[in-house]
């Protein structure tokens, strides 16, 4: 009798766990099904491939994660990444040393974040409108700079190594991605700054009245986002060995998708760097598995959309039950 009760309790706990972590469940189900369905999916080489495929997306999305944590929005990050991508290519083709070219590009990215942040905190424009506008400006600058053509040219080996090199069989991009992920996680969970960023997003009024300079933390979040976006643009150019004006525009929707998916991982609605990573893994695995299966890209999009809806539904069902 007691044993049965215990078993039942265990089962309930297990169901509760999966309901609560519906997104992680989705990730596991995907992983297991692709392992059985798709020959070659489980190969270490392919798994590394998946990580490399999500690296750029995750780096840019971790920046966006910071913006959501401080309670604002950023619609400009993809365009800032495109701008950075063509800017760094243009500078390098003009034979500026690539270290300096990267530095200039990152500073331009940070400047976008600074402008966004000042408009939001000093003038009080909503971040949605501010970043929509600065995003359009960034896009305009891209075309001003490129006249709409892609940049090809000889790029130094050292620069190309960023996006293409490997260390002990691990792509350098994947290492960069892991460093960004761990730094973001460390910042949010282990530092005072991270706690204050969360407080700023959680309740700006209470945080302000508790003596936290909330405007500075908003500024910080927006600057991190734009700088990481510029960094992503640099890495994109390095990986492709070229830059085109629309190169990073796809990151906007995909970035939103994985961050929102990430919000369902732990506590519904809470943005976390690790949650964003889980979201990126799900999208990456779907893309990879379906490609190996020979599915068309539109099928992939439909499946991605369905998976997103499903995990949000499961998580919100659970959190409703918990509240009720």
């Amino acid at each position, binding site marked *: 009798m007691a044993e049965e009760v215990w078993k039942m309790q265990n089962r309930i706990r297990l169901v509760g766990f999966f309901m609560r972590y519906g997104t992680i469940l989705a990730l596991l189900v995907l992983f297991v099904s692709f392992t059985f369905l798709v020959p070659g999916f489980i190969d270490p080489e392919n798994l590394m491939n998946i990580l490399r495929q999500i690296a750029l997306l995750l780096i840019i999305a971790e920046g966006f994660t910071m913006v959501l944590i401080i309670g604002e929005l950023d619609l400009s990050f993809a365009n800032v990444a495109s701008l950075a991508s063509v800017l760094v290519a243009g500078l390098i083709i003009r034979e500026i040393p690539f270290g300096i070219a990267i530095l200039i590009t990152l500073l331009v990215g940070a400047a976008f974040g600074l402008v966004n942040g000042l408009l939001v905190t000093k003038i009080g424009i909503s971040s949605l409108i501010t970043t929509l506008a600065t995003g359009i400006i960034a896009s305009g600058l891209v075309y001003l700079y490129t006249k709409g053509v892609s940049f090809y040219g000889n790029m130094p080996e050292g620069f190309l190594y960023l996006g293409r090199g490997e260390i002990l069989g691990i792509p350098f991009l994947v290492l960069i991605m892991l460093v960004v992920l761990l730094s973001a996680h460390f910042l949010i*969970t282990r*530092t005072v700054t991270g706690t204050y960023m*969360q407080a700023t997003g959680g309740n700006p*009024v209470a945080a302000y*009245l*508790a*003596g936290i*300079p909330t405007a500075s933390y908003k500024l910080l979040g927006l600057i991190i986002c734009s700088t990481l976006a510029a960094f992503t643009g640099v890495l994109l150019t390095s990986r492709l060995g070229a830059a085109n004006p629309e190169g990073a525009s796809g990151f906007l929707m995909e970035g939103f998708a994985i961050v929102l998916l990430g919000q369902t991982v732990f506590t519904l609605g809470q943005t976390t760097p690790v949650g964003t990573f889980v979201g990126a893994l799900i999208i990456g695995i779907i893309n990879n598995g379906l490609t190996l299966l020979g599915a068309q890209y539109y099928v992939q999009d439909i499946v991605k959309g369905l998976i997103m809806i499903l995990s949000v539904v499961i998580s919100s069902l659970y959190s409703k039950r918990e509240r009720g």
Partner: protein
Amino acid sequence: MEILRTEKLTKDFPGVRALDQVDFSLRKGEIHGIVGENGAGKSTLVKVLSGVHQPSGGEIYLENERIAFHSPRDAMSYIGVVHQERELVPSFTGIQNLFLGQEIAAQGFLKKTRMRQIAEEFAKRFELPVELDVPTNRLSSGKQELLTTLKVLFRDPPILIFDEPTASLSDQESKALFNLIRTLKERGVSILYISHHLPEVIALSDRITVLRNGKKVITEEACKLQEKDLIRFMIAKDLAEQYPKRELTVGTPVFQVEDVSFESFPHRNIRFHVCSGEIVGFAGLVGSGRTELAKAIFTGMPLKQGSISLLGKKFESKSPRDSIQQGMVMIPENRRAEGIVSSFSVGENLVLPSLSDLCPLGLRRTGAIQSLGSKIIQQLSIKVVSLNQKVTKLSGGNQQKVSLGKWLEKHATLWIFDEPTQGIDVETKSEIYTIIGNLASKGGGIWFISSDLRELAAICDRIYVMYDYAIVAEFQRPFDPEQILKAMHGGRGVENAK
């Protein structure tokens, strides 16, 4: 000739009996005033009558038939309520708002001319000076109030409740409203009129009911009542019983405000002081500027004139952060919106202001954070399962303790409490009084804002009264609640009691 009657009407909230066996009757075509202090049960009565709350006991009769409203929608066509909150769509014009949800249309097309005609006739009939053609957010708050009234009238209910309708009206607008109410009465509408402004209630009403602590004290013909009678009925005699006793050890002034006015607030020539070990009460009606004064000083609003000093030093602040560093902390009125971060745990909320002191390197020191959290929980006996419990899972009283507890480690000189016991059960209330008393006896100065006169009179050492953004009176112990209440209502002739 009773249109509405209640028998033993009772409403319980967790820990509080807001209405206690109230027998009340409203005659057809009468204006019936309801007065009482904050928390006496006036708004609860309105909410139960209009279907917002369900009664916990007792009956409501409408024209001798027992009724039960399950929602405001149920009640709408019988009982119209003009609230303080305006239920208008800001970007819509007056006409659009009046017809909201009951637009006149043919085949899905709005008949604008027809609606305009009806609305204009309607406004003319009641002689209300309201522009119906402009978006309502361009109207003054008084005009919006009149428009809201018009909207309620539109449904033509036989009973109308006015809940503090003149709070935001100019004199001229108030007059228009009084005329409207008298016109309605002549047309046979029965009216419940709730207000803080006693002279207004006496002048307007046929009968007046006084509530106190959720109980009905008396219902009397208005012509037999004077303001001082009402005040006497409103105040309980058994002051200072459930409040903890405290030894008085008032020291020297620690906080002095000299002749202060602000750039962006209407306060005029504010002058007061708080001594160490002293609890200084701030009484005043909602809208008298008490909260705004505290917030303006704490958040460092620029001064137009005057000076402020804390512990003998000039107090200069541009943000809460500056104020906290100089030894001033504030426990805001609306704890959910301003006092706690609801996505955080109890522990995180408790250490929030001390975090950068606790972790000088900027890295979270889990041990130090937990021990500070546990220490505060123990000191204030906050009822929690663990430090990691979500703060929103706590009761209101315990949330208030968290909102207050986060400042304990700061050892502030001046503590500002804004309505610290609002919506809190009786037991926790008296615990909070004890905590505040202890803070004072340790030498802190307490600036205590409250709408509860009993509370103020019981725990404060001195009371200032604010009216219309100015300090109009100062009272010393022993307090005369009648005089304080009079000053709160703008009664002149109350001179400095010194």
